[in-house]
């Protein structure tokens, strides 16, 4: 059965940003999740890429910002994570350096980001088990310490990719469900004022 109109109207749009060391697989994760594709040669992201994906079951529309990983692009990062409802910090399980960099991203978001931001830590390239250099225990302990949702993923095999994004969608704070019309007049008035302000700004 199709969802009632009132439910559709409440679809939640959430800004999601991917951060992490270059080559950790941010673009591959996004591409796997949004388009179900994987390329052996995924060119480096220059600047940022933007993709969207709707999860009809959870009534969430993700606006996904995929960023460049190199430290030199760092000055652009705040522009991308500002206002984000969620962040996925990606590292490569075969690279301890990328895990260190992930920790520095977590610190930065804790310091500068939205305090209510959902943060997930993704240990990507889990298919390369033989080359593993960051243990599950270490990452798990770090994630627990910092209140991060943690999952090991593989963009190549698609393992845990949907799970990662869906779990974030579930964790998003739900928008106020109650229709405003039934609330007190004060709120209606406030909305009216806000609308007036918007009109004024347009002119």
């Amino acid at each position, binding site marked *: 059965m199709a969802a009632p109109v009132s439910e559709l109207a409440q679809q939640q749009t959430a800004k999601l940003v991917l951060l992490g060391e*270059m080559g950790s697989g941010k673009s591959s994760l996004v591409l796997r999740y949004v388009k179900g594709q994987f390329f052996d040669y995924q*060119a*480096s992201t*220059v*600047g940022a890429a*933007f993709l969207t994906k709707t999860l009809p079951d959870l009534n969430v529309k993700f606006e996904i910002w995929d960023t460049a*990983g190199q430290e*030199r692009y760092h000055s652009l990062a705040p522009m991308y994570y500002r206002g984000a409802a969620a962040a996925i910090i990606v590292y490569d399980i075969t690279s301890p350096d990328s895990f260190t960099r992930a920790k520095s991203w977590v610190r930065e978001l804790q310091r500068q980001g939205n305090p209510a931001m959902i943060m997930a830590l993704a240990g990507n390239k889990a298919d390369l088990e033989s080359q593993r250099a960051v243990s599950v225990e270490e990452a798990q302990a770090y994630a627990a310490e910092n209140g991060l949702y943690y999952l090991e993923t593989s963009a190549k095999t698609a393992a845990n990719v949907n799970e990662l994004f869906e779990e974030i969608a579930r964790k998003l704070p739900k928008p106020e469900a109650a229709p405003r019309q039934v609330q007190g007049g004060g709120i209606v008035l406030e909305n009216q004022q806000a609308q007036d302000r918007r009109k004024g700004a347009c002119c």
Partner: protein
Amino acid sequence: MNFTQNFWPLKRNAVQPKDTRAINKARDASWQSVRSKGLSPALRAHLWPHFLDVSTHGGCPLSELVAVANDHVSAQAFYAAKGGTESWQETASRIARDAERIRDETDTLRGDQRADGIARVKRVLIAYALHDCAVGYCQGMADLAVPFLELYPTDDEMAFTVFRAFMARVRENFLPGMLGIQRQLQQLGGALGHVDIELHRHLVKIGAGNYIFAFQMLFLHLKRESSLPNLLTLWECMWACEDLLAQEQRRCEPLVCRQQTSPAAAHGVPETLLTPPSAAVAESITEPQQPVALVCVNDGQEREGITGSKQPSAREAAREEDQQQPLAAGTAVEATVVGIPAARVYLCVYVVAAALRRERKALLACGSMEEVLQFVNKFPSLNDVVGLVHDAEHIYKKCEGSARGQQQCGGPALSGLGNLCILANCFRPLLRLSQDMATGPEMTSAARMAVVDILAGRSAQYLAQ
């Protein structure tokens, strides 16, 4: 490939003053033909070094730099001493990781050949990182190296030399802080605002007015928005056009450096038009918002052409006619005298502006910055790149004309400080100015000091012996 000897005589700074005019004109004519149709693939490998002024960029050969890189301990020491911003190991690892994931867009990066192709990219990038340690490696450079390796499929040394010369033009974009690109994003907004106010206003309205969505286009010189053959044509048309625009500008720029005695008399230019160097300097210092007096020592015909009072076709006809006249003995040297470097013109911003204008319908349909970025991520592959450069030139001239008139365009306008830079550039061959003031915004304070020194009558210390 040892073609350098055949072509080096064309090098601007190596010819005798007497021949400059003829050679400049011959070069202008060939550059114009390149601008209007690009180069044949056979000629490309021979001419790119000239477009990029390879001869003016020194440095160790690829083989020596790669030899340094092979010894990690000495590479680390070298890299740190020369301004590397991270450990050599990190840089080398970044290069390896990025090279490995270059798209398999050409035959040399596909199938059995891929391993060799990737190894070549790595060598060139490793050598570049050691050549220019402050830049080292920045994501995106792997993309930019590919066209050069394609151009010289069997000559890594040449590929590196030409890539290095190209990087000399764009390196500011890749330095920590990326100031170059930030300035270009502003220029892009200014340029589009000049030529398509509706589009610019729309982008501002939907929150895309910082033009950050064009980051990749500027950063990679439209590499990912074009097929490789189109990209090569686009770049060479752009460089030819940049060079021609710089020549035009140079003819009208403050003439403070003259090699011959009284060229004005030879050309019948009224003395009142000629401003002595010190006066020009004084003017620029006391009234920084005023342009330095423009002096052209070419004939009236040339000057008329530059001021744009004629149609381009007429101007070109006039130039051709002029070119056919034999050079009279003792012809005075034109403003483009040997050794005066022109302020470079960078057209990439304007090419991007032209590319965006082509897609204005799609951009006007975008309702948010995110939509614009989404569109730009899948930018339609560029075709008619020659026409694109032509459009870019048009946009550039429009902005430049406005800037000259109003002195307020953020792009190529000559501010008071800009005038000082140009003055310092003009003096460079005669004055012993340190190398570090030759390029970049840092030069301005050094340039200012030099000019102040000249004003104070202490120019003797700068004069070349």
